[in-house]
């Protein structure tokens, strides 16, 4: 699971949960997959992120390299910045760990890189 995926996931469908976002991350096993830097992609994806959630997630898995939780202004022309975002967003892969609902503490396992967000019949409203 990449941090970009995490940025989109929510546990709102659980019975009684109001927001269910962001999910806390426990990373037991993290892998770095180097991939080609696609500047256009990173530039366009940044405004779609919940930036603070992204930075917090990076901190939680112990990988934040000096990015602030306030998005800088002129990021589109800052290659060094965009490359850091690229690294955190798509190169880091959580292989084993957990996602945890912020309201109920329900644990969703991540194994082999695949988060399992299947709910039991009695967990849905």
């Amino acid at each position, binding site marked *: 699971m990449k941090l*970009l995926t995490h940025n*989109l996931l929510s546990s709102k469908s659980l019975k009684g949960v109001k927001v269910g976002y962001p999910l806390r991350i426990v990373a037991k096993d993290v892998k770095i997959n180097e991939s080609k830097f*696609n500047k256009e992609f990173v530039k366009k994806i940044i405004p*779609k992120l919940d930036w603070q959630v992204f930075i917090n997630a990076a901190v939680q898995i112990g990988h934040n390299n000096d990015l602030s939780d306030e998005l800088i202004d002129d990021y589109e022309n800052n290659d060094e910045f965009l490359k850091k975002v690229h690294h955190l967003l798509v190169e880091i892969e959580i292989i084993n760990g957990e996602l945890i609902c912020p309201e109920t503490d329900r644990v969703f396992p991540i194994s082999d890189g*695949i*988060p399992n967000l*299947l*709910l039991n019949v009695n967990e849905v409203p």
Partner: protein
Amino acid sequence: MSLNEKNASELEFQHVHDVYENIASHFSETRQKPWPNVVKFLSKSKPGAIVLDVGCGNAKYFTNTSDIFQLGCDRSTQLAQICKNRNHQVFNCDCLQLPIRSNCVDLCISIAVLHHLATSDRRLKALREINRVLAVGGQALVYVWAKEQCRNHNLSTYLKQSKINKPKAESTPELTKEFCVESIDVNLPIHTNRSNFIHNDLLVPWKLNQKKKQENESKTHLRYYHVFEEFELKLLCEQIYDCKVIDYYYDQGNWCVIFEKIAI
């Protein structure tokens, strides 16, 4: 057919989810070729787009581009594993509860998934979920199996692949055997593969290949399907208030809809 929620979920569990878990690798071997009109829809994505495939199976519609972010989900852990082995982003969930925040997906596809849901309410719910996660202006393409396997005197590919169906197969009768799903005490007809549909809710046999025979896996699995009538899918979409149907068409034995999330 009318089932309560509990029985519908039980039926899907036994005759959809369990079946896909069991046939995953064989299913994946036989599902390599993307449908052209789905590929065409996906080619509309702009750089930086977030693209979601609901019920992605073996990730047949994923490409290796780095211009967009492709994310897939499926109920089957076996199929998700196949996607992951191909280096795609995937997670497990049920399409009735997408674990995705609202308003963030630019393009969504769900190909041949909704016909596995056993009530009209559930099929509508799945469409609502897709629409919920779409960003305003975002579009979704949904394919479901059509009851009509013959349109304008053309046989669908599904019927054409039949060894017994000659071109004039329009009237090929569906031989009906019934199967009792004991846990919910419901009888469903077993479909004769590559024939026309008479029923709307049925079980379609999947035979595992010969190789597996030694492993005692040569079992026939019965997959539950609800086949859609001509306007059924469109009418469901029209019940969603912040959703606009952009296109509705018939393709290869499927009813297909493109809809867009609109601002309210």
